């Protein structure tokens, strides 16, 4: 409780000036501060009578502790630079499902790197991602150890709600809120206390529209966006507004979104990107790939030059498929002549 003294002596009006986020705090905790700006917090709380305390289920003692905790957390949170200073993640070997030691040199992942994770279903991809998220210290079933910036990770990565190490993007995610794109982003920006709210929101909408096959308007309800537009918005929002320095991606469907640009946007915002995928178009975009089997990491492959060439070949094939998709959409017939022509162009 670093703010104990200030909290006792300052008036509400002064506190709100120092800590503007307290306005929301009072509101969400059902405390009316209107017309009470000249009181101190304990005076404010003592104006609430017995009945109101009982009705709103307020506990003064707990509230005092909560206000102080909340201020401490917010100050710490606001004081941190964008990616919380995570520039390197290291995975140290543990053991696989049969208890056999994993044999690999420590895997070092730097910010702005893309790492693919491949392996059969049930091989332990989720557990690896969970080990990272929990910053495992030989205390998970795999006995792996995670280092952040070559050091033992701070406990905050496990327990703080505003400092999550990992943001997740997965296939079956939806927007469920009944808001327009702009309102939705405003809400997210407010919860993150960003200063230049409007310019951040404009940037996200702009980037999302660069990723989406079909552009959308900021006044569209998020629930009306197409699958591709939703994914584009989720990725742009995560890249720009999420506090988490690491992004986990569980496949990105190849429809209505430019996946290459999406990954570039994420690493451009200095994120570490981990991507579970079996799609060669996506997997080969990674700098390295981790191969998992039977719960253990069995290999770390660095994407070869030959593979990078293959990737550009695959991208050409993909662009042909995308063009045909478009033609189908607009009621055209596909012809073998077209295919030959496209092949030649590619």
């Amino acid at each position: 409780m670093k703010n104990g003294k200030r909290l006792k002596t300052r008036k509400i009006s002064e506190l709100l000036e120092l800590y503007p986020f307290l306005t929301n705090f009072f509101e969400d905790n059902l405390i009316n501060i209107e017309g009470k700006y000249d009181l101190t917090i304990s005076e404010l709380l003592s104006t609430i009578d017995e009945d109101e305390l009982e009705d709103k289920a307020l506990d003064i003692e707990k509230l005092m502790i909560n206000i102080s905790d909340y201020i401490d957390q917010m100050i710490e949170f606001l004081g941190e630079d964008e990616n919380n200073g995570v520039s390197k993640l290291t995975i140290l070997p543990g053991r696989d499902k049969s208890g056999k030691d994993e044999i690999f040199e420590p895997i070092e992942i730097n910010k702005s790197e893309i790492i693919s994770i491949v392996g059969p279903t049930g091989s332990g991809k989720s557990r690896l991602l969970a080990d990272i998220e929990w910053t495992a210290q030989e205390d998970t079933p795999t006995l792996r150890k995670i280092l952040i910036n070559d050091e033992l990770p701070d406990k905050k990565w496990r327990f703080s709600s505003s400092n999550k190490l990992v943001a997740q993007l997965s296939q079956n995610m939806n927007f469920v809120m009944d808001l327009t794109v702009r309102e939705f982003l405003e809400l997210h920006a407010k919860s993150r206390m960003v200063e230049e709210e409007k310019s951040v929101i404009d940037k996200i909408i702009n980037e999302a529209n660069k990723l989406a096959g079909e552009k959308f308007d900021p006044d569209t309800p998020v629930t009306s966006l197409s699958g591709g537009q939703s994914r584009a918005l989720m990725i742009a929002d995560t890249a720009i507004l999420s506090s988490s320095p690491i992004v986990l991606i569980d496949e990105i469907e190849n429809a209505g979104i430019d996946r290459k640009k999406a990954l570039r946007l994420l690493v451009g915002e200095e994120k570490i990107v981990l991507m579970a995928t079996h799609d060669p178009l996506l997997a080969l975009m990674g700098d390295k790939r981790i191969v998992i089997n039977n719960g253990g990491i069995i290999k770390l492959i660095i994407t070869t030059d030959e593979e990078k060439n293959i990737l550009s070949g695959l991208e050409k094939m993909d662009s042909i498929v995308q063009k045909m998709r478009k033609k189908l959409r607009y009621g055209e017939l596909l012809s073998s002549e077209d295919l030959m022509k496209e092949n030649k162009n590619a």
Partner: protein
Amino acid sequence: MNLVTFSGPPSSGKTSVILKTIKALKDRGLKVGVVKFDALATDDDILYEKAGVPVRKGLSGALCPDHYFVSNIEEVVEWGKGEGLDLLITESAGLCNRCSPYIKEIKAICVLDNLSGINTPKKIGPMLKMADIAIITKGDIVSQAEREVFASRVNMVNPGAVVMHVNGLNGQGAFELSTLLYEKEEKIDSLKGMKLRFSMPAALCSYCLGETRIGESYQMGNVRKIDMKGKDQK
């Protein structure tokens, strides 16, 4: 024996989270049992049985489930001791937002789900505000932004709580939760003399006692009237 109380709105995923967490606890060789509290009916006891977890259920019927819970918790602890459990989990549905089932010194966990809407945290009283751990479920089907906003709202009403995301379907996060539930040194023998963290919702009016007729002349005891005037007419 350790005791942990789980609570949360209906369908938030309490049972799924508990089942996945028990799996991780069992892997550590711990014996875990569950007592499930509900109002009219529950089949969750069958799910626990299927998973080989010793289970009892208590249905509050016409009584306030919170009051029923606290009037029975001592017997529940006795049962757990008799079964030789290392960890006893009580699960109770928070059927009204004013529910307040937690006991001082006993670990309290509230389960909420991302789909319930971002205004839910402020609407829930002591069940969330007095919890030690807040579990947020169904994160796999909403966006990262919605998860972050929801978690920040939870943090605002209970900054002291550990906020964790657990997926009741695939168990993501359940192992991590399991590491926070059992302390070897902790031993609960009896709850006699312990206190609730907050008073339970109160009522004692003619309707509590079985009155069914509507009308002012039938209303006695702790009765309160809604303010129909609205803001502008005050």
